């Protein structure tokens, strides 16, 4: 089976976000594989181990993402591809990423493509579905279970806490939700093997794309941090008075009723 995983390098979940000159500062920040993409990588490895084939992890970004690709290889993926758009694209968006990925994937005869449900940074959840649309293959998002029998696929999908069971067929793109599996840690032998596995680097040129083809469809107007949380207020006195005060504060100060 020819399996591809779409991976994104993101901020570590524990990083404090600092905004500098209207942009999120990356200085000194630790980066990780987007946690939802880790589920996708783990699932891809499990599907390969069961059905045979090869797992290729693909990312769109700059050369810093090589580290996360190597980690995916250390987990057990077979090949990695970095599509480096740093020199060609200044402000990409989900359209940019999806277009680049679809262009790369269109002649790869992928049976199964896995991605994370969302990236924990931008959180748009768009790239997976967009790639499937561009490739003209079915997709199922937020999956928590995947069963493949020949070309038939049974998927359990998380719908805001409920489950939806969907039957579909390969080729297919799915996006992984928490609960799909327990991603493995890269083992030390895995880490030692990772550097010997192939990591291919491509640029837009190699995909016969130029910057206009992938120009962002959206524009970011402003980035700002949420307002600082104020200290809470503890009301005092008679319960009946407290209730009155609470209602009036909700009305006049919080303006929620």
């Amino acid at each position: 089976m020819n399996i591809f995983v779409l991976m994104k390098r993101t901020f570590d979940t524990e990083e404090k976000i600092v905004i500098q000159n209207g942009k999120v500062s990356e200085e000194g920040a630790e980066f990780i594989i987007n946690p939802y993409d880790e589920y996708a990588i783990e699932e891809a490895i499990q599907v390969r181990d069961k059905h045979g084939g090869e797992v290729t992890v693909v990312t769109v970004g700059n050369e810093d993402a090589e580290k996360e690709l190597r980690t995916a290889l250390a987990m057990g993926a077979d090949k990695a591809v970095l599509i480096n758009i740093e020199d060609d694209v200044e402000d990409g968006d989900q359209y940019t990423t999806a277009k680049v990925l679809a262009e790369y994937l269109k002649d790869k005869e992928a049976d199964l493509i896995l991605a994370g449900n969302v990236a924990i940074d931008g959180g748009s959840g768009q790239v997976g579905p967009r790639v499937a649309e561009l490739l003209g293959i079915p997709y199922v998002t937020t999956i928590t279970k995947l069963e493949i029998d020949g070309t038939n696929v049974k998927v359990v999908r998380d719908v805001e806490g409920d489950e939806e069971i969907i039957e579909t067929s390969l080729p297919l793109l799915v996006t992984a939700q928490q609960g799909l599996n327990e991603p493995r840690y890269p083992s030390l032998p895995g880490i030692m093997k990772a550097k010997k596995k192939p990591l291919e680097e491509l640029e837009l040129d190699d995909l016969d794309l130029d910057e206009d083809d992938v120009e962002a469809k959206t524009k970011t107007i402003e980035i700002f941090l949420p307002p600082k949380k104020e200290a809470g207020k503890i009301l005092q006195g008679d319960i009946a008075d407290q209730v009155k005060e609470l209602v009036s504060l909700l009305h006049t100060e919080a303006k929620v009723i």
Partner: protein
Amino acid sequence: MNLHFTEEQEMMRKMVREFAENEIAPFVERMERGEFPRPIIEKMAELGLMGITIPEQYGGAGMDFTSYIIAIHEISKVSATVGVILSVHTSVGTNPILYFGTEEQKKKYVPKLASGEYLGAFCLTEPGAGSDAASLKTTAIRRGDHYVLNGSKVFITNGGEADTYIVFARTNPEEKGSKGISAFIVEKNTPGLIIGKDEKKMGLHGSRTVQLSFEEMKVPAENLLGEEGQGFKIAMANLDVGRIGIAAQSLGIAEAALEHAIAYAKERIQFGKPIAEQQGIAFKLADMATNVEAAKLLVYHAASLRSRGLPCSKEASMAKLFASKTAMDNAIEAIQIFGGNGYTKDYPVERFFRDAKVCEIYEGTSEIQRLVISKQL
């Protein structure tokens, strides 16, 4: 000097850090109640962490010494207990066989130790032989195709849990001091190997430290490690490795104390602002952070010398001396910053304090480190 980690080292650091936070941290409470972290060791074994520096041909990961130090450092940030179990298992439980064993001994024991199927321990210290290890009194008398051992050992880390013990005994009672000492590989179920009482330690709860005695214990002659009389050399050969390991463990504790202190000081509001903004506390944090940085440089410098096979006995002692003091100082300051909360078991800093103290004692006391350093000046 270059403190830049290689790609593999960096990948491993992240993996170990994540593993420690996700797998070890939830187990800390059970260790504090005295439970040996067997499930954690099994998981570490699956990841290859029980044989980091062991060559691939003997079933290890074949990584360099610095990688091993990274692992001890990151693990000890979460649990000094797991740190010491791994350190003892690797540096003195496995390495002596790898360095001094016959090919047969290596094939028989090292792959099992490297894969974590076996846990290793090391028996040198005796009631009357601590810093002065060469004064040990345990005897090993050759009788035909085996040796008969009699004597007792104390403070044996991993004792009662280990599958193999490297035991030091006097094969030639005529010779005093370091001469006449030999090393043996002893398997756990050997008749005459008596696991004595568990030491009731101040800290490192969950790591087992026991007294051992040997009563007419028969050890096959083929389990003699190295040659007769080579024991003291074998014991001393891994000192640097052991000391840098404990220095890394100390660094982990020191850094954990610092990180918890910073987080607490930024949250805790007194006199209308976080205590981290009160200069009295801010300056404490500045000193703690500076000492952590200095300890880190000493530890990784010593590790890099060792990785390159260069002499590092002075640097290893300096790293251990300074890092263990930093662990102790930072733990004390962290408790002070936490105030009354720091004195309770609801917060981790009192554990750091209890775990840090032993770093100034085992693998050579701070006084012994100063002796080693001063002799090389």
